[in-house]
């Protein structure tokens, strides 16, 4: 199948380029998940680092084909959960069991209070709150760190300028190699992408 190569001037919808623009990267389009997997393995083995795959649905095994490393997110979430446990314990221990004054914006006091004859430091009564705060801290940390690591929220992305790329949410599979990759050279990277036999290759402006 002949590969269609689109240069920036063609995508400009007839408008002459007023000034030289920066290239965001090269977009290669594939028809099937299998083609994408094979191509991703070659990109991985070619040593590219700033590149990504875009698919309309999760493709099993793509992480391995792309050589994506394990995320450190679980460790951070574990830390956040442990922090939640500790905060809940200290909060309850201080407010229910200890009575020294503490500065927290204003001076506050712990307030030991006899409840149904239980000792002031009654761990069983604290556990539900410790459990809940563990869950809360972990869940919030998971979502927030996931956004942070993925660079979200992102309201604009250079790939949105490509008309072909719209099919990434429908029936086509894409690989994009970004210009900031240390191995990126416009001509040579385009030659490399051609060897992966995509349906089309497009240069995307930043």
């Amino acid at each position, binding site marked *: 199948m002949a590969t269609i190569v689109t240069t920036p001037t063609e995508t400009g919808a007839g408008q002459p380029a007023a000034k030289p623009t920066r290239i965001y990267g090269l977009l290669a389009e594939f028809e099937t998940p299998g083609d994408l997997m094979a191509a991703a393995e070659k990109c991985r083995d070619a040593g590219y680092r700033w590149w990504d795959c875009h698919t309309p649905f*999760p493709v099993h*095994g793509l992480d391995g084909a792309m050589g994506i490393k394990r995320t450190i997110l*679980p460790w951070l979430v574990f830390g956040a959960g442990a922090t939640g446990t500790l905060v809940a314990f200290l909060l309850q221990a201080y407010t229910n069991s200890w009575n020294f004054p503490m500065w927290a914006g204003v001076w506050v006091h712990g307030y030991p209070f006899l409840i149904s004859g239980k000792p002031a430091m009654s761990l*069983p*009564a604290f*556990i*539900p709150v410790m459990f809940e705060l563990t869950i809360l801290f972990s869940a919030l940390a998971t979502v927030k760190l996931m956004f942070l690591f993925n660079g979200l929220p992102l309201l604009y992305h250079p790939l949105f300028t490509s008309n072909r790329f719209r099919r990434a949410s429908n029936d086509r599979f894409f690989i994009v190699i970004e210009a900031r990759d240390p191995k990126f050279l416009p001509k040579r990277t385009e030659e490399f992408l051609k060897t992966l036999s995509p349906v089309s290759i497009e240069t995307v402006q930043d």
Partner: protein
Amino acid sequence: MGHATTHADLGTSNIQLPAFALGFRNVAIALAVIGLGGGAAIGYTGMFGTDGHHFWRAYMIAFLFALTPCLGGLFFVFVQHLTRAGWSVAVRRPAEALAANLRWVWILFLPFAVLWFMGKANLLWVWADMESLKANNEAEYHIVHAKEAFLNPTFFWIRAAVYFAVWAMLASFYFGGSVRQDASGDISISERMQKWSGPAAILFGLTTTFAAFDWIMSISPAWFSTMFGVYFFCGCATAGFSAMILITVRLRSLGLLKGIVTAEHFQDMGKLLFAFGMVFWAYIGFSQYMLIWYANIPEETGWFLARQLGGWAPVSWALLFGHFVIPFVAVMSKWQKRRTLVLAAAAVWMLCFHYVDLYWLIMPEIPHDIGTFKTYGEISAKYADTPSHFGNPVNFLLAIGALAAVAAGTLGTLSRVSLVPKQDPRLAESIRFENQ
């Protein structure tokens, strides 16, 4: 997706136990005879200070230690049909084989019938002899007397017969159906098993709950906890998933099920053990404890008080850390669940602590004079040397014997059938399954 082809090897050498497996079965039978026989001999002669109280409790623990993996296997099987799960087909046969033991496991309950005919059932269940209960502990007698419509020998044995009948019926239905499908490949068998999985879940829930009430909770007949059935169910799940993991790991290490059972399946079985054996067990155990601790009603707290006096306090702590905290942290990570050696070690560990859990449920005695003390200090001083007799060999002989009997039954079943439901419509989906 059922008709997609796979390249997995479904040849006899890959999905059939080799002949030497029957040698393992004979070892298991020998262990069962030695264990149960040796335990009975110790109980009969009263060696190591074993009295009737201790022996029959130890036997109840051993019986439940053998029963719970089978119930856990049954739970796994019908839940897969209930949810029409695709991933689990490759590992369903070991669970079906475990459940198939429920067809004969009632034989291990027969010694209690003998005990009853000997008129000594009150060694284990004090309510079996209301006269002597009245003479020994009148306060408890009055509470238990009000429960006599439920707790009486006739109804007790009718219920026991119903439990075993229901379990045997469900196990035959699911195991038998799955094996018939191996031969015929008839998809309507799967549909029928799915159709009846809802009623199976209800029957299973009711029978295990009431079996836990009858056999374990009524050992302390004045005490009650509505959560007790769920707690026992957690034990069944712990034992069942551990046994499944061990069987599958062993089959893989024998070079069987190559290309059929993958790290993905181990990870998911690990998730189930993690969720039910560790997290849900701790959740239910704590919920039960906290409500009773908070309300602080004497006839309820007595049960937990007996478990934190003297030698029982370390057992309670060991259970908290051994059944929950340590394994929870150890297999929390996806990567640990995918390592078969780590997962098998976790399964052995959980089986050990499942035994400790049963021991903790059944063995402690509630001091009869518990209501006469004024303070916790007084009672803990008096019962500071409460023994737990954990080291008595009768415990281990009976437990190993009963478990070996079930292991022999499982091996015998597995050697007669293929190790995967080879004609199941979802087998291909299961083999290709990957965790996201």
